[in-house]
């Protein structure tokens, strides 16, 4: 018994100090929006450099909190922080990639791209005023679709989410009732619906609940074969979520390094622009220059080598001019 105890203690001691793999580890946490592309990049980066970039998808709210508490090397958030907020927590911020948030539905007989919605409909559904799928407000947009007389099951996020921030910013922009009653933010007081954890949770609940509607980052809709809807954009056209419409939305964006790239892309003016697009941001602790250098090295590699993977997953890589602006921002901030 004593021998066993001594042996076990020795083993534990060895394990706790063993850097047997001697792999360098960087911990990041935050938005579930870019989780598919970040984890893909990290997987490839690990093959090339051996560095383990451990990214945990816990929601933008979590990312902001963890980096503010300095419990991770970088945080990720779809909701950009204002320069004041960044100052308060002594953080730096830059965008990494762009994508779109899409409404997804699970209605028997409705395929991907088979349902048209406008901002009025989406707003009323999420406010709880529009309760049935065959309501006139939806029927009038989709005369040829066989809509059931079933109650709409609304799915939203239960955690602090940048995807929610983008979505509610969109709703606040097009729907005064929403702006007054609920507002925009990473975590809001939802009038109706069930809450899923992360983009993953919303996708999961929407998939397994009949007659439901949810909102997810497009990669999640694609990877889980969820039926996304078409949306009417501010220019008056019904657009499909795809690489072109996301790119269109990003085309008019003017990111300003002096404002730490704080910018929302919702309700972009382009003719074929997807109305709920957004960039996703990386947050760094100002004073941790050493660890920041390592994080930035990863993103620099991703900017140079990760575009193809990002496009495969239907994210919009940043245009070259923006990437250069970001590299200049890094230099200007001593990284």
């Amino acid at each position, binding site marked *: 018994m004593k021998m066993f105890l001594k042996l076990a203690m020795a083993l534990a001691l060895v394990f706790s100090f063993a850097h047997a793999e001697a792999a360098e580890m960087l911990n990041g*946490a935050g938005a579930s929006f870019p989780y598919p592309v970040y984890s893909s990049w990290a997987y490839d980066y690990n093959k090339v450099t051996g560095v383990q970039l451990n990214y945990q998808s*816990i*929601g933008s*709210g*979590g*990312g*902001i*909190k*963890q980096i*503010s508490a300095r419990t991770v090397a970088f945080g990720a958030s779809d909701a950009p922080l204002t320069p004041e907020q960044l100052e308060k927590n002594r953080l730096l911020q830059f965008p990494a990639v762009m994508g779109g948030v899409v409404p997804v539905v699970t209605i028997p007989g409705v395929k991907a791209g088979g349902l048209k919605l406008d901002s009025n409909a989406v707003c009323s559904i999420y406010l709880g005023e529009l309760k049935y799928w065959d309501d006139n407000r939806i029927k009038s947009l989709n005369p040829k679709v066989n809509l059931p007389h*079933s*109650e709409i*099951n609304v799915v939203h996020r*239960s*955690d*602090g989410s940048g995807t929610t921030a983008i979505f509610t910013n969109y709703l606040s922009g097009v729907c005064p009732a929403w702006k007054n009653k609920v*507002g*925009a*933010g*990473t*975590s*809001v*007081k*939802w009038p109706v*619906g*069930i*809450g*899923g*954890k992360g983009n993953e949770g919303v996708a999961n*609940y929407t998939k*397994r*609940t009949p*007659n*439901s509607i949810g909102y997810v980052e497009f990669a999640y809709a694609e990877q889980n074969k969820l039926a996304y809807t078409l949306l009417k954009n501010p220019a008056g056209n019904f657009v499909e979520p795809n690489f072109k419409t996301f790119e269109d939305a990003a085309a008019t964006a003017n990111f300003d390094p002096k404002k730490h790239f704080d910018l929302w892309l919702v309700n972009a003016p382009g003719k074929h622009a997807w109305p709920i697009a957004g960039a996703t941001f990386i947050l760094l602790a100002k004073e941790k220059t050493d660890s920041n250098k390592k994080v930035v090295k990863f993103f620099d590699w991703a900017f140079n080598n990760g575009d193809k993977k990002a496009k495969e997953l239907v994210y919009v890589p940043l245009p070259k001019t923006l990437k250069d602006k970001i590299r200049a921002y890094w230099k200007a901030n001593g990284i």
Partner: protein
Amino acid sequence: MPRTAKKNPVDNIFSLVTAAASFSIILLIIGILYVLVSESSLAIGKFGIWKFLSSTDWDPVKESFGALTNVYGTAFTTLLSLVIAIPVAIGIAIFVTEISPNFLKGPIGAAIELLAAIPSIIYGMWGLFTLSPIMSNHIEPFLKKIFGAVPLVGILFQGTPMGIDILTASVILSIMIIPFTASISRDSFNLTPSVVKESAYAIGATRWEVIKNVVIPYSKLGVFGGIVLSLGRALGETMAVAFVLGNNHRITTSLFDAAATITVTLANEFAEADTDIYLSSLFYLALVLFVMSFITLAIAKFFLLRAEKKYSR
């Protein structure tokens, strides 16, 4: 402790070491209370005690937090799970002690206790993948059809059955807490002196009448202790409920609605609370839960001790 003539130094050291180890329990309880209180002091300062407990707000944007929706959800799910679990558990105890043939008593008792050994995350996963579709496709529509239109009771059965709701969560909880009441009740039933039972049989009581009028009243204390213990465990369950509760901060009257409990709110939002007041409010919730379960478990222990004293006379 024997008073030896010589004071052995190693003995002193050993007794101190073991004493310290056992005092760790006291230190832990004090430590947990202290940390929880100091972490929630921000929220306590802003919301006070009564206002926090009675407010239904849970608004991270407007930074206004209240415990009522969470406490309500915790209370609703635990009480409902007890309502489902207690009759089943006592039924099991009756079966094992009075009805089952001797050779089956051991295996069935062991099987029920195995239910308690299954980790709660397995319950949660099973609930999400297997139970929830069954509930939403078969059981809940059936219940709605029967009870939905009945006045008064019908309020419990409104809304669309999604399977991710209070009812499913409570069913899973009830399965988890059955073993606690069942084994303690079984032990208490077994401690009824045969003399008393035999006297009842002697005056012509049927088997059920002996159980109802002799065994159960005699074991009241033990059974009650078991029930309160199950309540205490149900209060603190997180993973079994997190998958199927739906996470909606609302006071709701329908079993088919999503809700929030303190444990699930903590699990979902703790790692992400981005403002100080948000995190402090979550610690405040944890404090409320700790106090609630501590008191419940203390009450359970009280009854079990009284039962022990009574039965060993």
